[in-house]
């Protein structure tokens, strides 16, 4: 005999794996009881029995923390892998809902883990995996000097004399350029500002394949008698000079010395690690005596 719809709805509060078989048992007993006791008594009986069962299972759930019984062999055989995955996901979600404290700690742990992984990946991606933002980065090398008497492995700066000789005589490299990093005071236009700079020899940008807006440094600008020249990074041009389209040709003060701005580097081509850095690209100059010594300014 079919159970009343309300009783079936009430039995939905039973554990899912037992719900159907318990409802079947009650239907069987209800079918046997109703002809003997009459419909009214049978109705009262079935409602009362179902309610007691539900209350008993709820109490059991609260006091014992009912675990799910093992999946029977014949059901396990019929389950596809997706049934199993779905069951695990639903079970996991229920457990998380039942234990909000544990859920909170788990979510925080996951958030910290994912955040740390993302940060590390971003650094590794930028520093190690992505190619340098220059043309043909695989053929770029850094030349360093070595003093065997002091250290067999320690690499240091190259002397200016060696650089000039190598640049003039080398047939191995397409181009050789010298660089030296420094910090300069940028003043004369608003608040003075300490900026990071890189002094380079002419040909440096061409070796990297970077074409600035304006022009690059010229070989004759190595001459110490010529005016000092500078190329700004894109970041400095935007932040300090408000992306002034007439910046080329203007004179700025670096360490209180006037420099003519001859170009602006394209975005992402250098000086991108620090937003407010600038790159100054003055020439390498021979000293006044014309001797083998050079200095970067």
């Amino acid at each position, binding site marked *: 005999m079919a159970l009343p719809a309300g009783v079936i709805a009430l039995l939905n509060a039973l554990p899912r794996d037992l719900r159907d078989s318990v409802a079947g048992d009650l239907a069987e007993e209800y079918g046997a009881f109703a002809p003997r006791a009459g419909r009214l008594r049978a109705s009262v009986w079935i409602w009362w029995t179902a309610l007691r069962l539900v209350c008993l299972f709820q109490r059991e759930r609260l006091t014992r923390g009912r675990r*799910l019984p093992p999946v029977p062999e014949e*059901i396990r055989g019929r389950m596809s892998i997706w049934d199993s995955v779905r069951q695990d996901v639903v079970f996991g979600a229920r457990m998380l809902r039942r234990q909000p404290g544990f859920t909170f700690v788990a979510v925080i742990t996951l958030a910290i883990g994912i955040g740390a992984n993302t940060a590390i990946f971003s650094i590794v991606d930028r520093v190690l995996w992505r190619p340098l933002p220059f043309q043909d980065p695989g053929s770029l090398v850094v030349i360093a000097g070595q003093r065997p008497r002091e250290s067999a492995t320690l690499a240091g700066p190259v002397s200016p004399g060696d650089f000039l000789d190598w640049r003039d005589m080398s047939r191995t490299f397409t181009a050789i350029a010298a660089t030296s990093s420094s910090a300069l005071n940028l003043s004369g236009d608003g608040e003075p500002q300490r900026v990071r700079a890189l002094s380079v020899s002419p040909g440096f940008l061409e070796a990297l394949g970077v074409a600035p807006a304006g022009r690059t440094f010229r070989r004759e600008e190595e001459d110490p008698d010529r005016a000092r020249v500078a190329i700004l990074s894109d970041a400095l041009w935007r932040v300090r000079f408000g992306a002034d389209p007439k910046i080329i040709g203007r004179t700025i003060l670096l360490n209180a010395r006037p420099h003519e701005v001859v170009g602006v580097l394209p975005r992402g081509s250098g000086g991108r690690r620090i937003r407010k850095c600038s790159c100054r690209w003055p020439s390498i100059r021979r000293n006044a005596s014309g001797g083998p010594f050079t200095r970067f300014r």
Partner: protein
Amino acid sequence: MSALQPLGEFEHVVLLAILRLGDAAYAVAIRGEILARTGRRVSRGSIYITLDRLETKGYLKSWLGDPTPERGGRAKRYYALRPRAVEALKESRRALVSLWRGHEGTLT
């Protein structure tokens, strides 16, 4: 699987009823068997909860039979003893027999 736990008295009764019923052991029949053999009218809830606990402990396995019209198209859940349940019954019996030994005349 956890170590063998001592059986409660009602668990003992339920396991023996299942053993007696063989392949026909489902909740209604187990309750009827206990009533017929011991005269105890146990509640349905006690039967379901005990079966559930015994299954969780690994003493029972269960499976669904075929749906029948008199059950509203629902299947019976049959139960059978796992080997560890037989071991637990043997251990329980051994303990009771050992305690009884020498006092059969006193308490009958």
